[in-house]
């Protein structure tokens, strides 16, 4: 399997810049999170990667080959999207057959088991399904298509907690049975934080973080204590946000702590999670509560 590289992709719709010089690389057989607030440009990006729409500039390459109009390369990528492109009376079974014709080797057996676990029947028509059921039909399709890169746009849209749970479990099962790359594009960060190995965060149409989850969390420190001491300790470090409560200030850092600096007794260090990191990174200072 070859890596998929997104190189300097920009996209304009009329006057509006939707993606601004976006670059990152997806490695084979890894689970990624593509995170961003609503309207950040995630769906547009996924549609560009899979050649459904064209970028204004930039390229997408699988290995050394440009994927644009390259059927071989595009046959290794599958996008589970929001748009429903099937004609009216299309059964779930028919969507599997179509995927089998396009990609080959569709895993009918696992798909049948999963449909049953989710309480669906492959003779049901896609257009008759509720939002949540339609998501399930698409997920089961995506989990069983034979492709090296499976991109999922809002994979848990409309699913209740039980079904989300079942999906995460089936995703890991599928990944372990046949390691390939999954990209989960979502704003439900808490739920996927443990599932994804690497995240790409998009904000204001640009990539603002592209890193291993564990590495980001290692840098995510809280420093709290008397405001003056916290300010002294965090001087020169990257502070994303801070909060004051009485005389106590808490600073949220995204940086290595300096081993040389002495931590005063009244100052406490801690960690915060990916969800909060995302909020502080993407809120552009809205959460500074000074």
């Amino acid at each position, binding site marked *: 399997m070859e890596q998929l590289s997104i190189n300097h992709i920009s996209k304009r719709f009329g006057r509006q810049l939707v993606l601004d010089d976006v670059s990152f690389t997806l490695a084979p057989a890894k689970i990624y999170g593509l995170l961003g607030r609503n309207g950040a440009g995630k769906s547009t990006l996924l549609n560009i990667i899979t050649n459904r729409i064209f970028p204004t500039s930039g390229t997408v390459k699988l290995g050394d080959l440009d994927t644009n109009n390259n059927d071989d390369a595009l046959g290794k990528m599958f996008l589970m999207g929001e748009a429903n492109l099937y004609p009216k009376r299309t059964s779930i079974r028919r969507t599997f057959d179509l995927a089998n014709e396009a990609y080959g080797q569709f895993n009918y057996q696992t798909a049948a088991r999963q449909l049953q676990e989710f309480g669906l029947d492959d003779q049901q028509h896609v257009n008759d399904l509720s939002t949540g059921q339609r998501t399930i039909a698409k997920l089961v399709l995506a989990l069983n298509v034979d492709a090296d890169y499976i991109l999922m746009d809002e994979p848990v849209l409309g699913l209740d907690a039980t079904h989300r749970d079942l999906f995460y*479990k089936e995703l*890991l099962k599928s*990944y*372990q049975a046949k390691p390939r790359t999954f990209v989960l594009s979502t704003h439900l960060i808490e739920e996927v934080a*443990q599932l994804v190995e690497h995240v790409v965060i998009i904000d204001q149409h640009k990539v603002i973080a592209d890193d291993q989850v*564990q590495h980001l969390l*290692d840098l995510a420190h809280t420093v709290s204590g008397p405001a003056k001491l916290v300010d002294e300790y965090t001087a020169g470090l990257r502070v994303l946000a801070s909060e004051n409560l009485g005389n106590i200030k808490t600073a949220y850092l995204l940086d290595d702590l300096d081993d040389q600096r002495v931590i005063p007794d009244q100052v406490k260090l801690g*960690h915060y999670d990916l969800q909060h990191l995302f909020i502080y990174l993407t809120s552009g200072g809205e959460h500074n509560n000074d």
Partner: protein
Amino acid sequence: MQFDFDGSAPLYQQLAAQIEEMIFTGGFDEGAQVPSTTQLSQQLHINPATVLKGMNMLVDEGLLEKRRGLGMFVRPGARQKIMERRKDNFYNDYVKKLLVEAAKLGITKEHLIELIERGEHDGTIKH
């Protein structure tokens, strides 16, 4: 099996710590097989790479061993090893913290010793 994660430390370390605790308290016997990376990953919804990192940490510490084709097992002597390590850390993990808090509260050394004796007397400490 009950796992409980928070943001206090990297996930793989928390996972390793909780498996260690289960070995220590007899949840897993020495020589017994522990759940596979695949099982833990699917059950806990954690990326397999993270689970593997946690398991490997326990292998490096000599608490688990890999048996080719069979899976991961608790090494004989693992419990003793955990016990020794915890004894080594007891001073840092408990005694130092106790003294720092006592100092903040103005509790004297004599009073502290009295409190320890009272705790023992009350039978809240099991031997």
